[in-house]
């Protein structure tokens, strides 16, 4: 290639490397450093593992961890609901395009907007409880937002509501790419609905389901800040009943100005996300091979 010297490729990737080094590289190095320091303002003395001892011995930290883990309960519900709806959509293909547009709406609405709407709907004297009482289900008319026993369930409900939309679309896309003769054959063999699902659909959808499960686990552990911040009044409230790790980092950094503590939690969260990268890439690679193969 006469026009490109050996340096040319490096010039092309230079801006990319610089940007990634600044936004990812620099912070990822410094959270490790900060996590061993007593940072006041912009720097501070080394204090060994005292930050880690402090957070690991603190009730609020473990409560946040428990809440993140609790949210994982949403994943099987999201998978089951998305599977049910996507298979129904696939089987009565007539009008599926319109359904698809409508069922994806929850994912289009920004989390803060929908959280504000849900908060008003689930108020103790709000429309949801009014309908429940009208149906004679008074025992279900809970204080959805204001009670510390229920608040995290309500957040989970909102997460399920929104994130299932993605599952439905992903699963439907996979179903539509299936070889129709396969399903025809199952029909001709007189397979029942359940048999078709069990022996035709589920095996073919195994990879996309695994992919969705991994992505959802990552979401529950590290990307629920907007839900929690809006529903819990910015504090993970009522009390600390909806506190999660992301909000813990946010509060330690902004509200109590303890960058060292916030960094130690960031390090732990980063290590967890490293553990999840491996399964994520494994499923994605296999899913790509499948897409190429069919």
């Amino acid at each position, binding site marked *: 290639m006469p026009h490109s010297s050996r340096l040319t490729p490096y010039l092309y990737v230079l801006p990319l490397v610089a940007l990634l080094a600044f936004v990812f590289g620099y912070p990822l190095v410094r959270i490790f450093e900060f996590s061993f320091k007593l940072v006041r303002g912009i720097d501070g003395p080394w204090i060994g593992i005292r930050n880690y001892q402090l957070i690991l011995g603190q009730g609020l930290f473990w409560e946040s961890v428990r809440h993140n883990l609790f949210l994982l309960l949403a994943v099987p519900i999201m998978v089951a609901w998305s599977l049910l709806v996507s298979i129904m959509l696939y089987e009565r293909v007539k009008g599926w395009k319109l359904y698809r547009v409508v*069922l994806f709406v929850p994912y289009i609405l920004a989390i803060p907007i929908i959280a504000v709407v849900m908060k008003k709907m689930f108020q103790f004297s709000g429309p949801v409880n009014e309908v429940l009482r009208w149906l004679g289900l008074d025992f279900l008319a809970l204080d959805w937002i204001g009670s510390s026993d229920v608040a995290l369930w309500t957040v989970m409900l909102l997460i399920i509501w929104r994130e299932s939309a993605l599952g439905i679309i992903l699963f439907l896309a996979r179903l539509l790419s299936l070889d129709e003769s396969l399903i025809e054959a199952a029909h001709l063999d007189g397979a029942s609905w359940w048999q078709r699902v069990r022996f035709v659909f589920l095996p073919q959808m195994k990879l996309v389901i695994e992919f969705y499960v991994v992505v959802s686990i990552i979401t529950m552990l590290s990307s629920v800040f907007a839900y929690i911040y809006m529903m819990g009044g910015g504090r993970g409230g009522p009390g600390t009943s909806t506190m999660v790790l992301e909000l813990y980092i946010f509060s330690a950094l902004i509200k109590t100005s303890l960058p060292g503590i916030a960094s130690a939690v960031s390090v732990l969260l980063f290590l967890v996300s490293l553990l999840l990268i491996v399964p994520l890439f494994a499923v994605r690679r296999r899913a790509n091979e499948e897409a190429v193969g069919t």
Partner: protein
Amino acid sequence: MKPDQALKHGILLIATFLALVPSLFMVLTSLKGQDEYTFNKTGLPGALVFDHYESILFDSPFFAWMGNSIILAAGAVILSTAVSCLGAYAIARMQFRGRGLLFSVSTSLMAVPPVVMIVPLFVLYTQLELISTFRGTIIIYAGLITPFSVYLLTTFFRTLPREIFEAAHVDGATDLFILWRIVLPLSLAPLLTLVVVNALYVWNDLLIAIIFLQDDSKRTLMAGISVFQGRYENQIPLTMAGMVIASAPMIILYIVFQKYFIRGLMAGAVK
């Protein structure tokens, strides 16, 4: 077969109802008077009241917030796309040491949660006085969305036939010319997907916005909403009118560009 069909139909109708009911509540409530809402929470509005829209449109900073969000989204998307096109072109089409490593590192960064990066950046930005500046925040957003852009563009550039590049090189075209005049025009579909996913990410983000743009005049729409809801705690119809206006731009874009939204958000879910 008959009860079977009815059941399927029923499940789909329930799913549709659940997907739409918050939006319906939002729109219907926004048209009720403040007093009417206290005794009519679930029904249709008795008479259509547009006062709330008037007060949001004329007496609240919603448009200023939207303007700020547009500046950030446009800035971050332009910066990230430019950087990613150059980088992805080199990774897909040039030979150099560290090429594979750069691509795997960049791709792995997609799975790192943004919250992990905020502490050192906040400390650094405080020191450099970059808190509450658009340029500082645009760089952070651009960085966060770049791994996905590089991943998508590299995989696409690799699918382009080799002959195009060889022929262009023989004709004496430079790499920049090939990228600008041949590769990019062929890549409009993935570029549009990228713009949708990335702009939506910046537009919808709350975490970076409330940490790095603390100044009232720099607030984004999402950060503005979090302030707004607290201020008008008990004025529910007014709040809902605000939410209708806040969601209108994306809903309109979604209806116009459904195909790219659905395709883009599915691809973007990888993040």
